[in-house]
């Protein structure tokens, strides 16, 4: 009897804490929106963050996109060739990248590359009491620290995802057409016939915006609530990656079932 009660107590406590976490996350979001106007007055801050989260992520995004595209080309060719329709490789590569892999893999890399950096930076600022110092000087940490990083993530993520899809398709082209020797014209024309701008490309872009929002907000929130110790910051950084990745994969399923069914 006591065991059962304990179980329900733990369940209740975890549900309550995750709900309150969600609540303060939403509160952080609204605060960010309110202070955005203030932070846009010094847009350099946002530009600096775009450089940090976007431009410096370009290398890892481009390299992984090219390899993902090449692997898709190889594996897709292996299966499609059995049905004598190896020209459809262009459609396969493009749809897989534009609809799913582009936004999802970019978001996972983004969470690992930029999200952890945001969490660690804000967590350390909190640990060294820089945030409190700002409040003492009547500088809002939300306007000065949080909002620029939030908007930088929101802007960088769709751009990175689009670049990922494009480079991935070029990777698929490299393998399928230049190495294996699938017909060049059929590769592109079948792709163009079957990839719809509104249903596929725009929906993929919407996905990447949602993922950018999720990853950035989680990273910011984890940084702000991290216990001000070395251990706390390291835990928060780990949490950022785990929670971001799981939310991206879960959200991807939900979005896909809304968009493409």
């Amino acid at each position, binding site marked *: 009897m006591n065991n059962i009660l304990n179980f329900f107590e733990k369940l209740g406590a975890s549900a309550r804490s995750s709900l309150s976490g969600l609540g303060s996350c939403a509160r952080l979001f609204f605060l960010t929106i309110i202070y955005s106007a203030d932070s846009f007055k010094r847009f350099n801050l946002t530009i600096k963050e775009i450089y940090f989260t976007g431009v410096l992520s370009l290398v890892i995004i481009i390299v992984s996109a090219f390899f993902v595209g090449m692997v898709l080309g190889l594996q897709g060719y292996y299966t499609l060739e059995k049905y004598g329709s190896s020209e459809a490789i262009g459609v396969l590569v493009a749809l897989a990248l534009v609809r799913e892999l582009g936004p999802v893999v970019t978001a996972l890399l983004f969470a690992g590359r930029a999200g952890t950096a945001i969490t660690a930076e804000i967590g350390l600022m909190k640990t060294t009491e820089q945030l409190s110092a700002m409040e003492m000087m009547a500088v809002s940490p939300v306007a000065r620290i949080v909002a620029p990083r939030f908007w930088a993530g929101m802007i960088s993520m769709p751009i990175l995802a*689009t670049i990922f899809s*494009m480079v991935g398709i070029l990777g698929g082209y490299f393998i399928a057409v230049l190495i294996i020797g699938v017909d060049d014209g059929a590769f592109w024309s079948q792709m163009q016939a079957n990839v719809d*701008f509104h249903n596929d*490309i725009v929906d993929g872009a919407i996905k990447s915006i949602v993922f950018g929002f999720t990853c950035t907000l989680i990273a910011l929130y984890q940084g702000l609530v991290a216990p001000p110790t070395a251990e706390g910051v390291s835990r928060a950084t780990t949490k950022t990656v785990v929670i971001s990745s799981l939310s991206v994969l879960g959200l991807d399923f939900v979005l896909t079932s809304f968009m493409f069914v």
Partner: protein
Amino acid sequence: MERVKLDIWVGIFVALGIIAMFYMATRVGNLTSNDVKKTYEVKAYFENIGGLKPRAAVKASGVVVGRIGSIVFDPEAFHAVVKINIDERYSFPTDTFANIYTAGLLGEQYLSLEAGGDDVNLKAGDLIVHTQDAVVLEKLISQFLYNSAGEDDDKDKD
């Protein structure tokens, strides 16, 4: 100096994003090609539309001249009513044939228009009278089996 360099990099980044989007829209997607703008709508009745779907291609001599608008079932006459949007640039005689074909062996189905010889052209809201249903493989096979079974009977009589 530091700031200018930063701005340049961010500018390159954003420009790359725009180029990528543009590239996807034109080279990968079909935003620019076969987008039929001004159309007029005609109707056609089919007993069986097979796998024809809204937004499927309407072709004449293999060239895309329009898109399927909507497909509904008429519960009183018991047939499918297919609305066809044809590009304004093309006009077809009133005795045009509308056939449902399949692209390739396993491809998707499209509507093919074969022009007739009439002097009067189809107008918006007109009905295409001559239609041919989609071919159902099972029907074909059963017909074939029935016919070959009949041949065997004939041989037995001899």
